């Protein structure tokens, strides 16, 4: 297996060589569809160069390397601002599940390779209008008949479903048992009759999220992942797959160094802002916080390198870094005065304060709202009790709506 430092150097050089063709400047002014096309080309190049499917076994078209190799590459890739956003969900969770649960291994391999090359895109149909943090409260129904399953219902917040060829989904197969026990997991063909995808615009202008409607959509029993009724457990598995994700102490917003450079040119009544105690305090506090998060990340990396399990404190990064990004972005805009008013949709959140600010609320909700992260820390790490849950142990169809 390739040594980590050698891997890192190779990745660095390869990414640098692609800057001109795929970097942020090269993509400036592109429509989303054009950008997606560039993204597909990038994914193909990445596959050819041997940086795709880093933790996926080689017999399924991956690299067969460790989570650490993946974290190292993902960190560099994010810093290089490559157009991989459309494929983030697609290549993260669905592929390991396909490999684990799909009986037709040759077909699974075809799908994995096509997804890694960016030729096909998968989406993840989990959240619903009435089921977000409380995922097990979902209402989309899967009814079993002689010829397979019929799906009816609505999903919401499905990222890039408008481009998706396939999706993994969870639906209620038995409403007469408690909510966690009546769910079953499937993959679905997004082009199948009865599937309607409706994109909608987010507050920051992004068109990434979709409503997905299922009207009598037929799904074969061979499309089921895991046992009937084991859907929630399979969904939790998907969330565990990405536990060593690349993290960013800046919360995917601009760096402290960028904030300092912005302040360097500004003044308050003729006095440089960098001399103002309030600005200095914000710089010092945010830097100290982010240095701590960075030290946690580095310690986790070292632990993984040493073959040890990283500590649970890695769970803190999103919670603390995005809040820091949100408030610092507000301050950065405010202190520019009139210059802070201009806003262009679709800016890169790590370079543009307006985009960073507008996108921060999404970050605080996606992939676990702040409140859910705090629950997880309190319950899983500190051993505090769950909240009072009146629906616990109650058959789903007996829970008052």
């Amino acid at each position: 297996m390739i040594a980590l430092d050698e891997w890192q150097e190779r990745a660095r050089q390869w990414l640098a060589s692609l800057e001109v063709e795929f970097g942020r400047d090269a993509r400036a002014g592109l429509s989303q569809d054009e950008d997606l096309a560039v993204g597909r080309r990038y994914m193909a190049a990445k596959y050819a160069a041997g940086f795709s499917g880093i933790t996926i076994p080689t017999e399924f078209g991956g690299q067969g390397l460790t989570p650490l190799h993946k974290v190292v590459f993902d960190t560099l890739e994010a810093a290089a601002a490559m157009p991989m956003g459309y494929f983030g969900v697609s290549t993260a969770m669905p592929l390991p599940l396909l490999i684990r649960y799909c009986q037709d291994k040759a077909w699974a391999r075809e799908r994995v390779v096509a997804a890694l090359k960016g030729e096909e895109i998968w989406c993840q149909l989990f959240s619903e209008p009435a089921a977000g943090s409380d995922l097990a409260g979902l209402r989309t129904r899967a009814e079993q008949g002689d010829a397979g399953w019929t799906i009816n219902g609505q999903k919401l917040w499905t990222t890039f479903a408008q481009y998706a060829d396939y999706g993994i989904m969870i639906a209620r197969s038995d409403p007469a048992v408690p909510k966690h026990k009546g769910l079953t997991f499937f993959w679905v063909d997004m082009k199948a009759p009865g599937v309607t995808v409706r994109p909608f615009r987010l507050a920051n202008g992004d068109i990434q999220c979709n409503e997905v409607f299922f009207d009598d959509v037929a799904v074969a029993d061979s499309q089921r992942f895991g046992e009937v009724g084991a859907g929630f457990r399979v969904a939790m598995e998907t969330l565990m797959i990405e536990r060593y994700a690349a993290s960013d102490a800046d919360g995917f917003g601009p760096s402290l160094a960028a904030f300092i450079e912005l302040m360097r040119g500004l003044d308050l009544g003729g006095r440089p802002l960098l001399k103002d105690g309030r600005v200095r305090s914000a710089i010092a506090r945010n830097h100290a916080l982010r240095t701590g998060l960075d030290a946690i990340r580095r310690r986790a990396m070292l632990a993984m390198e040493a073959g040890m399990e990283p500590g649970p404190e890695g769970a803190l990064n999103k919670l603390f870094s995005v809040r820091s990004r949100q408030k610092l972005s507000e301050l950065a805009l405010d202190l520019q005065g009139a210059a802070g008013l201009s806003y262009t949709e679709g800016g890169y959140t790590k370079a543009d304060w307006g985009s960073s600010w507008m996108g921060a609320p999404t970050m605080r909700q996606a992939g676990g709202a702040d409140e859910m992260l705090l629950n997880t820390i309190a319950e899983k790490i500190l051993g505090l009790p769950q909240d009072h849950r009146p629906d616990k142990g109650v058959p789903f169809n007996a829970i008052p709506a």
Partner: protein
Amino acid sequence: MSVLHDEAQRAITEETRRVLAARMDLKRQLELLDSVGEWDEAFWQTAVEQGWTALAVPEEYGGLGLGLIELGLVAQEAGRAIAGAPFLTGGHGTVRALLATDDAAARAHWLPRLAAGEIRCAFAMPQGGRAFQADASVTFTEGRLNGTLSGVVGALAADIAVSCVSGETGSALVLFELADVDRRPIASFDNGRLFADLVLADTPATLLAQGEKADAIAMEAIAQMAVLAAHEQVGGAEALMFAARDYALTRKAFGQPIGAFQSVKHRIAELYGLVEIARANCFHAATREGEADFLEAAACARLTATEAYDTAARDAVQIHGGAGVTWDGGLHLHMRRARSLAIELGHALLWEDLLATELTGVMP
């Protein structure tokens, strides 16, 4: 050096925790609050017996030749136990100052005694808004000190003191014996810290360094002590977080443990975040000893650890409700210690400014 601790370092943590837990005496700690000039001598004896005074002293001076990482781990446990003696920190600052001077005779004379725990040392910093500068109100001329060093931690039971004062050619880093010095005790909220004003009247002192070199050595020693204090703060903050957690698990209201209410459990989860971020900064800073970014790393540790301990003190007491504010419950020991540690090595605004200057190159 790695922020991942090796077996020996983990053993230091475990052994220190075991020893301190066995000797912790809440009743005695509470008694100390009521009297000025008394202190936790038992902790100091333990520190000497366990070799903690020798940990970070080079072997050629009778020490164990370890560094800030190991001493930091001891400090973290001392903070957890609200251990009542300030001399580990002051002693370490003195060791660093002596090692940085050109005065071989002073090193040979004092370092073995500091390592053996035969003498206790106070490191006197200017208080208020000038903590990182030489104390201009105290002069050193013709080998004698005059003026008052205010609010010196450990002063009531220290044998010697080190300070950076105003010398004949700029700053003067000096070491002096306290036997004949007029010590004016300060009745404080944390009397075990032995705070006093040192009134110096023609007090003889040894010059360790002068001018810019004196300032640089003093700043380095203060940063080292700040990293130790930050470890202590993290230990205290973590102890409070667990106290809050344990109380929230057992105390019931409205038919359930109060830890089931999000207003309570989220507050404790937030404390967990503050503690772990501060701890990561502490471990990081301890590995940056001697590097160009050490001051920056020390400031990060200091700022986040102060925030963690202060927030934990506020929130843990609040979560305990009435039980948090009784004398015998003892939580106020942490609340008091959080305050004294926040003041002793320079308050948060000073460290914010220092860090901002390091990062921006712009002075306040």
